[in-house]
């Protein structure tokens, strides 16, 4: 199987081959390619419980917790979190791209469910990057959501007190 992975702005090609079982454990050969560099690893699957994995990489025992969110795999390794975009060459064409807003406009979506406390701008207002547009309250915190870039607010039609879900468009900037 051939995969493509992105971590820290670097792209890796990864191929995985199933090897014969070793002491009753699945064994894999994983080859990592990053430009000219190529490295081969022998991986033994020692255990897995839900999303917690114990692997032997060459001789070292490594413990991982892997969750998926925001279209990425989040690998928790040695108490550090690595966001990895990983895809299968066959499935790459199906991957969604961009936001739902028309081209040239940028839709800013709610990252989590919350409540609109105050609208600081309305449609037609010019904003500078970093200027507050809307105040959203989530998990007992009021957060001022700032414009990600300079532009004109194209739409911004939420009412104060309205509830928003994760992924709802808060405002569109043109």
């Amino acid at each position, binding site marked *: 199987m051939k995969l493509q992975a992105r971590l820290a702005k670097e792209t890796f090609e990864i191929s995985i081959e199933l090897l014969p079982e070793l002491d009753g454990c699945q064994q894999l050969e994983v080859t990592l390619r990053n430009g000219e560099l190529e490295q081969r690893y022998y991986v033994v699957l020692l255990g897995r419980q839900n999303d917690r994995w114990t692997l032997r990489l060459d001789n070292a025992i490594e413990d991982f917790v892997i969750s998926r969110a925001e279209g990425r795999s989040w690998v928790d*390794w040695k108490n550090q979190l690595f966001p990895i975009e990983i895809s299968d060459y066959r499935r790459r064409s199906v991957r969604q791209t961009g936001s739902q807003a028309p081209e040239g406009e940028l839709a800013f979506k709610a990252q*989590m469910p919350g409540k609109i406390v105050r609208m600081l701008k309305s449609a037609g207002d010019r904003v500078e990057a970093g200027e507050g547009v809307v105040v959203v309250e989530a998990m007992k915190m009021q957060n001022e959501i700032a414009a990600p870039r300079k532009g004109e607010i194209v739409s911004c039609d939420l009412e104060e007190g309205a509830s928003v879900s994760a992924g709802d468009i808060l405002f569109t900037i043109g």
Partner: protein
Amino acid sequence: MFKKILVANRGEIAVRIIRGCRDLGVSPVAVYSDADRDALHVKLSDEAYRIGPPPSSESYLDGAKIIEVAGQSGAEAIHPGYGFLAENSQFAQSCAENGIVFIGPSASSIALMGDKIASRRAVKSASVPVIPGSEDPVLSADQATAVAAEIGLPLMMKASAGGGGKGMRVVHEEADLSSAFRDASSEAKTYFGDPTVYLEKLIENARHIEIQILADSYSNCIHLGERECSIQRRHQKLVEECPSPVVDAEFRRQLGKAALAVAGAAHYENAGTVEFLVDTSGPRADWQFYFLEMNTRLQVEHPVTEMVTGVDLVREQLLISAGEELSYRQEAIEMRGAAIECRVYAEDPTRNFMPSPGKVTTLFEPSGPGIRHETGVYEGFVIPIDYDPLVSKLIAHGRNRSEAIQRMKRALGEYRVGGVKTTIPFFHRLLSHQGFLEGHLHTDFIDSQGLVDSRAEVSAVEPLIAAAVDYFARDQERRKASRPLRSLWKESGRRYWK
């Protein structure tokens, strides 16, 4: 002692109090909102009652409903925990009127300390220093400007009814006064139903050091030393220690004396905490401390004091409320070793501690020598969006500060949480930070030391391999799952079309 106590809270603190009840042979009664049907505090209780839908205003803040449930269950007392109704004097008053013991101080003590402006006056008259600031409520942006001219910038705008960092704004520039006034009073109105704010001079690079006190109804009042709580984000504590790395026996005695004076001024009974802002920027002889506020309840960080003094604070709370005398005299309080607590929140530390609610898919709790873990979640539990996203409190105790820190690092290294992002990676960086290890702490430490940065974009081979193996395994599972269908189709095809 009571036979039955209702615990009017949720999460780890409800679990802690339930355990405290059991240790005294008291039957614990839980309450829950619809978001918490499945919560740990419900599972560990003897009886549990639904009090409403998820929003706290319709459940854990509904005092009338909780008192009704207490009557229904036959509970003689209510322990409010922290947050929610813990510092609501009207609730304490209603408990008394309904013949239920409120496990905490009297309604009048709560009311006095809950009104930050009135408490500043009371504390000042008890000869304990307060931060220079406005004596009266600030009612308009113009008035704020006038007061600012008097006490000078930078300053702190605070909600009179506030606490926990809500309704609080730091103002550096005069131009920001009006927007700060608007935001602080709006937040104060939202959270506390009272938009009143006041101003205090901002003491920069100060430490937050607090004193735990216990007082019974026989006028015995003792202090249990200090906690250093300078590691904060959004004015909320993240890491607490006992003792403070800088407080010596003499300074502890001074702080303790001031804390007892504050408790005396409030006619305080039960467990409480007197918070001080301590300016340690000059030489030791010039250190200044100022009364910040008094928390009239059990604190989140109470376990560090318990680990070092050996006093079970929840037990003492229950005994005091049952009318018994304190189990300890001041001379019996000894500080043994050092303890540190990390509050593990479901928050993304690389994105300014943004909440990260969701289902806890993996939870492995650390243990071993000197480790204590307080949590209200378990594997499979969904952390609701309606409340504070605290996953757990991890506490490490050792012979001294460096051993406690080393044990904390070991425990964090074992700790695994999957499904939600947590503050664990942040604690790792903090506990390896030279300034932290040397104990040079102040309330802006996290921001000033660049400990909150954007997502750490580092590359490593191991996580890439793990992500690939995980992807491969899921792909295999998908294929396995779709195989029987396909072969069934083939079989039936063969049978009918041959």
